[in-house]
């Protein structure tokens, strides 16, 4: 194939891919009755609406203690769900990673279990659990725990396998036991990256907790849903601002920690 032919072929491939993408976009829009023009038009309208309506008033500040209480609940929930899931995920990741797996059977099993937990959407967990636990904080906890667990196993396995397996070989060759090899050979090089994923999950879980809260009637999500249905936009504004502040705070903390331990 000559150079020009190659370029022409590449151009053709690009064109075909673009046509397929545009066709899929039109198909999807038709299927969901999504109208691009209306959609784009509603963006400025929404921004204008936000700045005129989502403003906390003096009256809404009277509810501040109540909101803070729920927010506190959500934060604790996000952190506890992330850390407990991380501990379980670490065990599964050790079994599932190529570098540290005990044997192939456990490896495949661990990866499969994690994949199932990860791919059942967090709302499905919430809706399944709410039937038995009711509108209870544990519903939120377990829903976050299961999805965080699945995600962290995947990320921890990637972290372990990307850090070189060289140290592991050296320790095994010198007669180290499995746990010595894991604790002294694998963890020191992977812990900072894993910790960074845990922080990422805490931040994500604060957002997910809002979603789960709407479905299960817990935490800050419950309050948001309540005021949303009562059309109390000043309160919605207050809640939104508080969530932003918390997420910013966690992001800032995790960035500084990441920089310090790298």
């Amino acid at each position, binding site marked *: 194939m000559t150079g020009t032919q190659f370029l022409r072929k590449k151009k053709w491939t690009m064109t075909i891919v673009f046509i397929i*993408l545009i066709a*899929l*976009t039109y*198909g*999807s829009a038709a299927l*969901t009755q*999504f*109208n691009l023009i209306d*959609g784009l038009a*509603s*963006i400025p*309208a*929404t921004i204008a*609406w*936000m700045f005129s309506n989502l403003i906390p008033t003096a009256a809404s500040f009277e509810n501040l203690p109540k909101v803070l209480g729920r927010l506190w609940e959500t934060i*604790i*929930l996000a*952190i*506890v769900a992330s*850390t407990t899931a991380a501990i379980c995920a670490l065990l599964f990741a050790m079994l599932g990673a*190529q570098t540290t797996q005990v044997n192939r059977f456990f490896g495949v099993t661990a990866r499969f279990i994690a*994949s*199932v937990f990860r*791919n*059942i*959407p*967090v*709302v*499905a967990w919430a*809706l*399944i*659990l*709410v*039937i*038995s*636990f009711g509108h*209870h*904080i*544990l519903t939120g906890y377990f829903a976050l725990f299961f999805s965080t667990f699945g995600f962290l196993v995947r990320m921890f396995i990637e972290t372990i396998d*990307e850090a070189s397996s060289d140290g592991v070989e050296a320790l095994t060759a010198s007669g180290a036991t499995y746990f010595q090899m894991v604790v002294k050979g694998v963890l020191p090089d992977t*812990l900072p990256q894993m*910790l960074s994923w*845990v922080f990422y999950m805490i931040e994500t879980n*604060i*957002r*997910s907790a*809002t*979603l789960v809260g*709407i*479905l299960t009637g817990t935490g800050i*999500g419950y309050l*948001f849903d309540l005021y949303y249905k009562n059309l109390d936009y000043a309160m919605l504004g207050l809640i*939104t601002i508080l*969530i*932003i502040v918390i*997420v*910013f705070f966690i*992001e800032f903390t995790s960035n500084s920690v990441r920089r*310090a*331990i790298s």
Partner: protein
Amino acid sequence: MEALPSLPNVAMKNGRIQIKKQTKATIVMRIVLWTLFAMTVIGPFLLDYGEIDWAEALSLTLGNLQMMFLQPAFNQITFGTAMMQIGITLALAFLATVLGAVISFFLAAFSARNLSPAWLANIIIASNSFVRAVPTVLWVLIFAIVAGLGAIACVLGMMLHTIAYLTKAYAESFEELDEGTIEALKASGANWWHIVWHAVIPQSSSYIISWTFLRFETNYDVAVAMGAAAAAGGIGFELFMASSFYYDLHEVGMITYCALVVAILLEMISIRIKRHYLGKA
């Protein structure tokens, strides 16, 4: 005679030789781990559990899980409807991803340090972190107030987070472009668009494809959630109806299985793409 180590720079503590020195990194690491540990242990005691009968709730859960996952069945809807709804969920995710990707591409070009001025990059990065801080479901609900509940609110809400995520990912891959290449192109009289079109895109196209598909995978999950939490349609809404309206556990199980199969397929494709383009496992 005091026991001295053979080397002058050996650190001693309580008559014992130290095998590592405290650095900022080790101290911060220790503080972070202890803080997380403390919060995990204390945290559960600070929550209000209300009245709950643990034994009953647990046995109820096990029974329910058994009904869901071992005896799944369609009752209210048919298999065809479920497939249709999954199609709608995928379509919502696809729209949010494609629209978001197009916008992100331009924002990323304007926010990559090597392509754009710092002030512009800072404005984009700051507004993106603002967008990211608000949960998707809140964005969807806020859009719904103006545009009404439905596809528009759902796609726009998801698109905002897609933009915030992809702009950062794209910009990072743009920034890996060699300074020398840019300089050489500039020296030969290329303008900004030439550089983007002929150097940036070819160099980072594999990253763009991997990141975009990864986001599509995530957006499918989000779209399921939005269907349930914001009544935006799709399989998530059916899941919500089955569990909270009909209390039909068999159907909840069946729908979960359907959603799960699609999610696992997407994940497998995503891993394939990543391996193919980035050579990573």
